[in-house]
């Protein structure tokens, strides 16, 4: 039966079709995703995701704000990696308008973005384990995340929805306390990652729940336009930071973790290993942190973007963010399309869920790691 027929009010339910609404008010649909499932027992025959519960018209807002005024909004799309979306917006506008960024600011941006990536992955790790029924790792992850927030709070002024990057720099310089605190945190997190490894990665129940569940092949990932850890879990070593480097990423040595199986365990492991790589990037950035200004002498308030269209890509915690900017030379963007990773990543779900169990639904949805406000925008 097609999805339209599922929603058709005149369609009569036969005796043994079992429809189940999972979400929008459900403990593990990660926000307000609604999955309309057709079941046979606990086996899923068909899944129809219903989106848009947190649609706020971000692209419409962008058309009605100046480039500067839109600055706080991207952080509200993917609120778990707000710094990165904030950075991405600045990057897109800087590239289009040709604004130079001091080197120290680039380093600070990268450090903060990688910290944000770790905190996003930590939250995902905890939430994923909670989806699988283990509550305790969730709180360990939040404990680690708390450290990241404590580090970022004095610098960015916020704990979650950061608005830190400015056109041509960052809002505030980092100080010695931040650097020493960060080095201590790196050491602590490395110890914690070992504990997670023992508590989760080797756990036989966890492995049984995730291995060979929700397998995405590389071809399937390509067909659905998957990016980020979902793609790297399927054996494709694609990372925007490597493929089309931006900011100062070319200066750092880091690996792109890749797993070839494409199942939930592989996606999990990719994210888990990425945290270690982010730590490596941060360490290198701290070692080489140059002196100098962090913002242009004269703050950029009015941005002149020559008429034309521009495209900018960015690797967020969930995959490739694409900002397609059309300018008519005016104060506001003429059109600003945000290609968000979760949107494409989630689109594979209906295909993936067929013939799995209800418990797998949660495991697969969690492993894809979607943020609903990012999808709904």
């Amino acid at each position: 039966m097609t999805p339209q027929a599922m929603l058709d009010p005149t369609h009569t339910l036969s005796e043994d079709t079992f429809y189940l609404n999972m979400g929008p008010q459900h403990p593990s649909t990660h926000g307000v995703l609604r999955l309309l499932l057709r079941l046979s027992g606990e086996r899923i025959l068909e899944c129809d995701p219903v989106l848009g519960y947190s649609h706020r018209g971000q692209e419409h807002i962008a058309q009605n704000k100046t480039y500067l005024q839109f600055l706080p909004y991207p952080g509200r799309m993917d609120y778990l990696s707000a710094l990165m979306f904030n950075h991405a917006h600045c990057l897109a506008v800087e590239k289009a308008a040709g604004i130079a960024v001091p080197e120290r600011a680039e380093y600070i941006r990268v450090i903060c973005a990688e910290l944000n990536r770790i905190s996003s992955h930590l939250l995902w790790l905890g939430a994923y384990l909670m989806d699988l029924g283990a509550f305790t790792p969730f709180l360990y992850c939040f404990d680690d995340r708390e450290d990241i927030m404590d580090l970022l709070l004095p610098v960015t002024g916020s704990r979650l929805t950061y608005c830190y990057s400015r056109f041509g720099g960052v809002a505030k310089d980092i100080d010695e306390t931040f650097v020493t605190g960060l080095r201590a945190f790196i050491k602590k997190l490395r110890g914690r990652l070992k504990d997670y490894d023992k508590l989760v990665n080797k756990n036989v129940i966890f492995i049984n729940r995730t291995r060979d569940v929700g397998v995405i092949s590389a071809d399937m990932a390509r067909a659905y336009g998957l990016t980020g850890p979902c793609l790297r879990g399927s054996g494709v070593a694609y990372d925007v930071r490597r493929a089309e480097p931006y900011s100062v990423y070319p200066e750092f040595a880091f690996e792109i973790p890749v797993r070839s199986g494409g199942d939930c365990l592989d996606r999990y492991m990719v994210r888990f290993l990425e945290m270690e790589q982010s730590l490596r990037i941060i360490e290198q950035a701290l070692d080489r942190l140059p002196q100098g200004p962090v913002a242009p002498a004269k703050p950029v308030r009015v941005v002149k973007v020559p008429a034309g269209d521009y495209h900018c890509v960015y690797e967020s915690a969930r995959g490739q963010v694409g900002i397609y900017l059309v300018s008519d030379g005016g104060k506001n963007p003429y059109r600003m399309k945000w290609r968000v990773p979760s949107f494409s990543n989630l689109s594979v779900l209906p295909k993936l869920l067929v013939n799995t169990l209800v418990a797998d639904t949660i495991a697969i949805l969690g492993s894809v790691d979607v943020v609903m406000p990012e999808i709904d925008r």
Partner: protein
Amino acid sequence: MLETTLQNYSYVLAFLGVGFLFALIPLVLAVFITPRGLGLNKLVSYESGIVPEGGAWIQFEVSYYLYALIFLAFDVDVLYMFPTLLAYGTFAWRDFLELTLFVGILSLAIAYAWKKGVFEW
């Protein structure tokens, strides 16, 4: 002997009855204390915030019943073993042999179901 048994079962009966009352009384009391009828939407079945499409009283997948069937066959057999075990040791090797035979036949049931793929979903 019979007397003690009767006495014992009178305990069981009493505990069962009191347990029943003990659960019932707070429920009855709660009816008088608790607020009622605040909003009709509460009376709709919960289904993640969406009005449910169709009820839950439907034909259900068979695999659960398969488990129930194996269980029935198995559990009843297992229960027969209790008296056997109580009398175990009164014979030389005969009781061990019989127990082994019985368990062996029981195991065949699992082996059969295993081979038939009852445990695979």
